């Protein structure tokens, strides 16, 4: 490259007449890859790490726990109802005679399943809907978004509650119910993201090269909108588990023999008053911890993705 000796006799570095292994553009700093950088940023956030630890713990606790700690969670036993903690029931038994510790594991399974499944449904619908709306633009976008406005204006809990009076018996039903009413936020997010990404230079660059619409969507827009979606998934999981708890409390939870943490809290009022703390605080604590963990993770992920895109 062009810099000639500035002073006779001392060749400039990197010039063709000064053989050097370094290319003229300079070496590339060996930084971490994109995801890894986000990962590192994420791991720097201690609260987030705590969130992951909590979540992993509960996944193990709920799904592996029952393999180690066997309890009968299918058959009620009226003869051992409402036992206080001790002996073979470390957390006592509930009003059905189920071992409470085992119940917390079983209830956690369904709570997590429903949380993730409904978040998955919401995310898939929301992403597709938002992407279509953002890409189509104009009148279609206007109509699609007004529809989202309408649904978003109907208080979520009301409509879910009303429907739950009929459909809330199984894990699948409940997930569908929650999922079908939580896709609005991701739809808006994705649309917004697509709208901004659409005019970003790298998308223009792909158009300049003659890239097809499909390519723009699948190679550029969706991968770049993904971080927004992923962050939203964690929040949706948390919200779904909370909504599940509200449904359970109001008496529209899952059907025996399935139970979720929300349903277990349905009778919390009485249990607390009766002094049966073991039926309330352990499961309530688990629920709060898992929801909190999801929120912490989501928060940290958002920061981490932000950083990665910001860092230059």
């Amino acid at each position: 490259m062009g810099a000639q000796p500035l002073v006779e006799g001392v060749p400039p570095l990197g010039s063709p007449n000064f053989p050097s292994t370094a290319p003229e553009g300079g070496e590339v700093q060996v930084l971490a890859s994109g995801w890894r950088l986000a990962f590192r940023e994420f791991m720097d956030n201690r609260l987030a790490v705590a969130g992951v630890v909590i979540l992993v713990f509960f996944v193990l606790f709920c799904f592996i726990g029952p393999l180690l700690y066997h309890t009968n969670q299918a058959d009620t036993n009226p003869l051992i109802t409402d036992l206080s903690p001790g002996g073979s029931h470390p957390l006592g038994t509930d009003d059905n005679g189920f071992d409470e510790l085992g119940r917390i594991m079983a209830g956690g399974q369904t709570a997590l399943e429903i949380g993730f499944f409904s978040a998955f449904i919401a995310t898939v619908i929301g992403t597709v809907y938002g992407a279509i709306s953002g890409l189509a633009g104009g009148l279609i976008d206007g109509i699609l978004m007004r529809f989202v406005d309408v649904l978003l204006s109907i208080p979520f809990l009301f409509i879910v509650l009303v429907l739950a009076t009929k459909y809330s018996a199984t894990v699948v039903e409940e997930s569908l119910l929650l999922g079908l009413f939580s896709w609005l936020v991701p739809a808006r997010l994705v649309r917004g993201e697509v709208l901004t990404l659409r005019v970003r230079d790298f998308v223009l660059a792909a158009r300049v090269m003659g890239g097809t619409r499909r390519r723009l969507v699948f190679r550029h827009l969706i991968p770049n909108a993904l971080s927004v979606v992923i962050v939203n998934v964690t929040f949706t999981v948390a919200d779904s588990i909370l909504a599940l708890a509200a449904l359970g409390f109001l008496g529209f939870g899952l059907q025996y023999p399935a139970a979720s943490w929300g349903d277990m809290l349905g009778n919390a009022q009485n249990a607390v008053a009766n002094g049966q703390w073991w039926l309330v605080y352990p499961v309530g604590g688990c629920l709060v911890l898992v929801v909190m963990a999801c929120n912490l993770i989501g928060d940290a992920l958002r920061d981490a993705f932000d950083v990665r895109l910001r860092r230059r």
Partner: protein
Amino acid sequence: MIGYLIRRLLVAVIVTIGIAAISFALLHALSTSPARAVLGLKADFKQIADWNRTHGYDRPLIVQFFSYLGNLLQLNFGYSYKEGQSVGALFDENAGRSAYLSGASLLLALVVAIPLGIAQAVKRNSIGDYAATAVTFTLYAMPSFFLGLILIQLFALDLHIFPPLVSDNITTTWGAITHPLQLALPIVTLAAITVASFSRYMRSSALDNLAQDYIRLARAKGLSQRLVLTRHLLRNSCLPMITLVGLSIPSLLAGNLLVETLFNYQGLGLLFYNALGNEDYPILLAYTVLGGVLTVIGNLLADVALTVADPRIRID
């Protein structure tokens, strides 16, 4: 401004009709008529069919919807046979107390969350910030009824500081206002959850603004920290809160539902809850629509307020 308002109102009306349509369709799918509620268990299907015919419940769905819409326009929300009152009258009786509960808790939440969020942003990454973050995240993760339950157990049943429930003598809004002790726990319960989310937003909004040069400029002018925060940071960081408050109406209504049930507080939420158990569809439908309308109005007001509060938002 007038033109803008008219346009926004027009959109709001369209959205409202959409809300009514969707709610109507959903609820109609669950229950086609209140005949059973009126006629009792002994009635047979023939009597039910007769009743439906005489009361127009056998008409095509779309016709029923438009007559419903027509009634809505005359502020006729239908009649609850279970409660023996018109839904409008029920709303009349309960709306004030619910509004007070929501309003007071919202106000309390704002009064706590705004300074808290700013303090957290200013003292970012301090022990206090971490502690507040931990508390807000915990509260945010807590179902409101669970929090209420803990508060009742602790402050009412164990410590006897507050009554565990709102006395049913409080039948007027004024009564609710004049008995702050009675409503302390429900208001705090609702507010605590709201504080959790508001203060997170407030914190990040304040952080964004703190990073702006105008804050540095304010310091460079020689303003003290207090003046920088009150004169410059406060208003700018609060702007997003306006939208947030507008958007929080659905969750406030949901919170009301849970808290009213928990604390024996007669209000719209409780009305809705009882209607759920009774499958009193006119009330369910009307409240869902009302909730939607309130949300629309809330968002509209928030937008208008924002245009007033934020000079950058210009209206042609």
